[in-house]
């Protein structure tokens, strides 16, 4: 159950990351698809995305009201499927939206992205774009989600050191009741884990301690929040903050803790693939996404926090993951194998 679908995902990623001697055609796997037809359709914008329809729908509708006549064909796939669709299959999409910054960067680095410069993209901060090919439009920190049943007001851990101490001091209460992402399954989780490992040595100690307490591994933020809210888990580590925030009004019983030592911030990015056909519409969407921080109402609807340099600077624990070739390092086959080996050794004891 814990490793369901893992082998296939791994295989697909291996394929992307260098073992490309296969010529056999793989169909990529999609999770959902929805067509937003325009009344007087002039063109279709085909988007492949890792973002849930719930979150992205308000953006599509607002985009369509500003760009009438453009139908939006929205396909959802996992980040590895998205990568495989464009990198291996050469599937025709006008825009690729993904939370996997490393894979998006690889698309651009390996020549699968178109360059685009406009006033809105030029206004983006330097850290929110790369080569004028990868454009970030959200900043989403990885947070700690704690159960209100377990924690009072005064014993909430504020940083990783306190979390480690908590785990060491109360092993009996916490055994089997801590959760985190399975980094072997989720692209975003792998990205957070590798960045955590770079940011602080405490990451490995934390992983080992969680492993010694039979940490439960999850595929998705939604399952973790459900289990934290129900009290089945005392806390879940590295949950996508934006998602947790959006669940607050529907689900009770959990709290979001932004730790004060550091917070890895993931940037959701858009890339116009070289295979794009409706380039004008794709560029209009990039412009739209680059100006999200001027539309607070829309951000409330989608639950996606826009690029906001002021917010970023007001909390110096926030560490946005840098776009650049260094993101390719953890995609290296040997590096990835070694990292996952260390991680598996630490989490399974």
């Amino acid at each position, binding site marked *: 159950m814990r490793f369901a679908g893992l082998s296939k995902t791994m295989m697909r990623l291996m394929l992307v990351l*260098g073992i*490309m001697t296969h010529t056999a055609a793989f169909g990529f796997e999609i999770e959902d698809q929805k067509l937003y037809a325009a009344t007087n359709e002039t063109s279709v914008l085909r988007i492949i995305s890792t973002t849930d329809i719930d979150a992205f729908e308000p953006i599509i509708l607002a985009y369509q009201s500003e760009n009438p006549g453009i139908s939006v064909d929205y396909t959802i796939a996992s980040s590895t499927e998205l990568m495989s669709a464009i990198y291996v299959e050469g599937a025709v999409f006008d825009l690729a939206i993904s939370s996997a910054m490393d894979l998006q960067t690889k698309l651009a680095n*390996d*020549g699968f992205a178109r360059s685009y410069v406009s006033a809105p993209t030029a206004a983006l901060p330097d850290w929110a774009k790369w080569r004028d090919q990868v454009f970030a439009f959200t900043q989403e920190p990885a947070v700690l989600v704690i159960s209100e049943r377990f924690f009072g007001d005064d014993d909430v851990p504020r940083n990783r050191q306190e979390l480690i101490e908590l785990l060491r001091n109360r092993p009996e209460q916490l055994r089997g009741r801590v959760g985190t992402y399975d980094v072997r399954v989720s692209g975003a989780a792998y990205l957070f884990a590798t960045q955590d490992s770079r940011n602080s040595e405490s990451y490995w100690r934390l992983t080992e301690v969680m492993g010694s307490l039979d940490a439960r591994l999850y595929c998705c933020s939604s399952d973790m929040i459900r289990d934290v809210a129900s009290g089945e888990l005392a806390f879940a580590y590295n949950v996508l903050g934006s998602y947790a925030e959006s669940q607050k009004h529907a689900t009770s019983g959990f709290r979001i803790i932004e730790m004060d030592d550091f917070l890895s911030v993931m940037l959701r990015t858009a890339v116009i693939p070289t295979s794009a056909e409706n380039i004008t519409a794709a560029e209009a969407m990039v412009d739209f996404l680059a100006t999200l921080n001027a539309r607070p109402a829309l951000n409330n609807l989608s639950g996606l926090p826009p690029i906001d340099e002021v917010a970023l600077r007001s909390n110096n624990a926030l560490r946005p993951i840098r776009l650049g*070739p260094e993101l390719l*390092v953890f995609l290296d086959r*040997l*590096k990835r194998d070694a990292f996952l080996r260390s991680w598996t050794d630490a989490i399974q004891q």
Partner: protein
Amino acid sequence: MTGRFGRGSIRLRLVGQLAAVAAVLSVAFFLIVRGVAGQAAEDTQDNILAASATAIADALYTDNNAVSLELPYSAISMLGTISQDRVFYRVVADGTTLTGYDDLPSPDAQTLGPAPNFTTFPYRGESVRVATVLRSVSVGNQPVNVTVTVAQTQLGLAEISSRITATATAIAVGFFLAAMALILLAARSALAPIGRLTRSVSRRGPQDLRPVVTDTPTELVPLVEELNKFISRLGTSLSRSEDLITEAAHRVRTPLAAVRAQAEITHHRLNKPEHRQAIREMIRAIDESSRSAGQLLDHAMVTFRADSHERDALDLTDLLNDTCNRLGPTADLKDIDLIRDLPEHPCEMVGDRILLQSALRNILDNAIKYSPADSRIIVRATDGDAYRLSVSDEGRGFGGAAHTELTTRFSRGSNVSDIVGSGLGLTIADEVALTHGGRLEISENTNGVGACVSLVFPKQ
């Protein structure tokens, strides 16, 4: 243009040659800056690529009898810090790819030395700069050759190089403009003495023949010395001619006067009419010679003074009175009534007194000479837009002779053979009028008898 610059301006030549030098220096400067800075930028990329490849090579290790690698994060991130260029790498152990981009060309291990190897070639649609490092790793006591190749596109380099080019261009252009400004200033100050010399020569009056004494730069000293010698020679020669003219008048007139007196006496003594006739013709010839000599010298004097005539403030009424007074006795001999019709006030103008006197004397002399006895001559001056000095008589008039002809040298009327004359008087008057910016007007008298000759001087 030719007047201002003449043929081959020193300034143009000076400025032109210095500008060419400045331009050559600017271009050389531009090329050097761009070359050096461009090389430095290329070296920077090479150094980082080599450092990256070396860092990867240092991370190689042996695991289970095979070469393995944990790609160091810094090895790639250092490439991301300088530019947003694309990065590719490949690690080959014993001919098989360990990790990285399979299709990235990697040089054969055999051809590599201990130092990093650099090449540039197109890869995935862009030109990439490539560094390769060779490392020998021992696996089960067997050395295995591992090549680490790191490649980066050259977008950042192109950006730096265009920035360097822009800076180098701006500096070179700035240098050239500054040099040009200095060159123009230098040319001006170098040539200033020539201008000063020119002004000091051209400012002097027509009579000023003193040597030039302005401060002169060494190069111009010989020229100024020669100029001064020339001026002094000219001065000598001028005063000599002036002396000659006055001298000659005396020298010719005095002996002629003596001969004439002797002839007169002889004439009285002779009785035979044919002898008296011969003597009368002799006297007439003497008169003509004397007159001619006098007029010729007067004319020479007028021509001489006309070039550099003096500018005295004088009163024309005064001059007219003076002339009438002098010729009054001659008129009296013929019982001619010399009527002066002159304004009360002075008629002031600037001119050469001697020349004007000579002109007026000749005009009045003609009037007296060509008038019959017991007639009237009116000397009139009017003052309007111009001063008009006219002498009208009741004599024989011009007899239809063309007026322009009468002012040419030695031309005389056809109706005056009975009267001695050389044909130079009106020529003198005409030249004096022109010298003073005026004109000579010749007309028949309005009432039909006699001539009217006028000098007209417009007021400035």
